[in-house]
């Protein structure tokens, strides 16, 4: 089954790769694109279905407003133009997972078009930006789910029959299609991966999808072709489906380059076909041939009213866009005065958002980074959970940090306080009180409390000064009360006598 390949470097000496990426993202709307059925994952088979998404006769679709808004917001985040008027179209073909025998999609009138996304890739000459041009982003619907029965492998080949669950049919999808990506040279695998990663970050930032590649809410098809040099016409491409992780995107591009190069060097041609990616073996295998031009007989969907987004609506949606993730990282790297490597560490540890909200709450960037990549990361790692799941708020960290700054806590005590916070024993101050963790060596706050106690009871100073040292007891008591029991009583006495110029 495995086809001959040649070394990647060798392939790149002979050919110029051209990429094309199609990404399908499942929107996180509450209901389907054209009916009110729930989009919730994991329901019993065929319980999130109705006459519309089952394609029963006489049913009529009704368009989900949030689906359209999400499409426009995605388009804007990808620097696209937004159509002033567009329609849905029927894409006609027969497949059991599609109950209507057509997919409601968009054809020559996509809602978003002509955009781009800049992605950074590490090259031999340092970090370089590649611009990926976006051809279009259009709205469509997902299909049902087939389970293939009989046959040894559970795959479609060799199956006796199939079972279909239509819960997923009609869930809103946005398909984002790039223009041919040229000029990547040997960095084609890295550019493909960086593009999907950047797109995922943007979609997550928009809050339009949970973008889980492993669960299929973000799916990538990788088109690849080779040509002898950039001066030549585009070569015949293969379309690799089922590429469901960032790593697989990179690996499948690398594999297809080496496979196609081997064919071309052997005097064979590349077949235009769908190929399937196999995560376990790291190869693609031939699927459906696309040599025959497909005939989907697209025509405008008469049951759905045209969409004409007003410019006011588009601008209103534009104002809801979050900062571009790449821009945000660059900005924070600069503002926090940290290196790119340190920023990478924050991202890889999954704590960038946590550090940012801590800094926004007044903590210094260095202190926030120290906590989230240090002690908290250590504890999270020890317990096999995410840092976020420890449930320590930046308010609590800021309080601990402030206490360290005033000398009320040292690092060792602070770790014990944190332990109490993670165990949800109470707020920081009550944990310090109940565990008796306050540092007592700091005279400043104690003296302040002594002065305040003497001011509240002027007679006691005179008594002490005249030799009635037992009167000091009431001052110590007042200081203990003011410091919530965390003061060292002996030290308070010493400070009190020194303050009054009296020897014990």
């Amino acid at each position, binding site marked *: 089954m495995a086809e001959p390949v040649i070394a990647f470097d060798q392939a790149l000496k002979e050919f110029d790769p051209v990429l094309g990426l199609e990404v399908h993202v499942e929107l996180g709307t509450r209901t389907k694109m054209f009916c009110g059925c729930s989009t919730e994952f994991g329901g*019993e088979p065929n319980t999130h279905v*109705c006459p519309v998404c089952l394609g029963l006769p006489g049913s009529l679709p009704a368009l989900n*407003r949030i689906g359209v808004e999400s499409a426009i917001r995605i388009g804007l985040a990808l620097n696209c133009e937004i159509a002033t008027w567009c329609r849905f179209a029927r894409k006609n073909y*027969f497949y*059991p997972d599609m109950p209507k025998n057509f997919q409601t999609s968009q054809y020559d009138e996509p809602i978003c078009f002509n955009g781009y996304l800049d992605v950074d890739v590490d090259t031999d000459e340092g970090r370089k930006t590649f611009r990926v041009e976006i051809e279009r982003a259009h709205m469509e619907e997902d299909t049902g789910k087939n389970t293939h029965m009989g046959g040894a492998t559970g795959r479609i080949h060799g199956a006796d029959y199939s079972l279909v669950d239509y819960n997923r049919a009609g869930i809103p999808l946005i398909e984002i299609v790039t223009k041919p990506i040229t000029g990547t040279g040997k960095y084609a695998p890295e550019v493909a991966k960086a593009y999907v990663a950047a797109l995922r970050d943007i979609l997550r930032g928009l809050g339009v999808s949970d973008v889980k590649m492993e669960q299929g809410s973000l799916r990538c098809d990788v088109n690849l072709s080779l040509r002898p040099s950039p001066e030549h016409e585009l070569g015949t491409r293969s379309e690799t489906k089922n590429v469901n992780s960032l790593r697989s995107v990179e690996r499948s591009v690398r594999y297809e380059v080496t496979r196609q190069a081997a064919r071309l060097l052997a005097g064979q041609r590349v077949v235009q076909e769908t190929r399937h990616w196999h995560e376990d073996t790291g190869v693609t295998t031939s699927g459906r041939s696309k040599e025959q031009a497909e005939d989907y007989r697209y025509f405008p969907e008469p049951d759905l009213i*045209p969409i*004409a987004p007003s410019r006011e609506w588009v601008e209103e949606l534009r104002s809801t866009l979050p900062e571009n993730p790449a821009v945000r990282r660059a900005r924070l790297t600069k503002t926090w005065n940290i290196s790119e490597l340190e920023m990478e560490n924050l991202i890889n540890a999954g704590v960038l958002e946590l550090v940012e909200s801590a800094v926004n709450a007044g903590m210094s960037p260095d202190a926030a980074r120290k906590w989230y990549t240090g002690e908290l990361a250590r504890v999270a790692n020890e317990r096999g959970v995410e840092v976020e799941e420890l449930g320590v708020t930046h308010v609590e960290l800021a309080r601990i940090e402030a206490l360290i700054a005033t000398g009320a806590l040292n690092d060792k005590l602070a770790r014990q306080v944190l332990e109490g916070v993670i165990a949800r024993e109470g707020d920081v101050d009550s944990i310090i009180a109940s565990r008796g963790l306050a540092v007592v060596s700091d005279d400043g706050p104690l003296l302040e409390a002594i002065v305040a106690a003497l001011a509240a009871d002027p007679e006691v100073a005179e008594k002490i000064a005249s030799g009635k040292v037992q009167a000091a007891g009431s001052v110590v008591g007042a200081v203990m009360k003011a410091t919530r029991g965390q003061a060292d009583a002996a030290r308070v006495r010493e400070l009190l006598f020194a303050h009054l110029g009296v020897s014990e």
Partner: protein
Amino acid sequence: MAAISRDDVAHLARLARIDIPESELDHYASQLDAILEAVDKVSGLDTSGVEPMSHPVKMENVFREDIPAPSLNAQQALAGAPAVEDSRFRVPRILDEE
């Protein structure tokens, strides 16, 4: 003037998943020809400057709010299915023809 060939009929039949015997291809070709000829009369009119119409009523931006509505239960959903297994629609082998 429309001229539907036997090959056209065979291609259309395949796309529509209709099993038309070899012997009937000519029969349908001439019938489809007659239909297309009738429709072709429209080409005699001057339609320059006339937009193709997909929707008879001029309306735009009709949306549904993203609020869940009741669905069918599995029994209702499967009531019209020719074959059912495990709360799912049972369909014949998919890759038979390849």
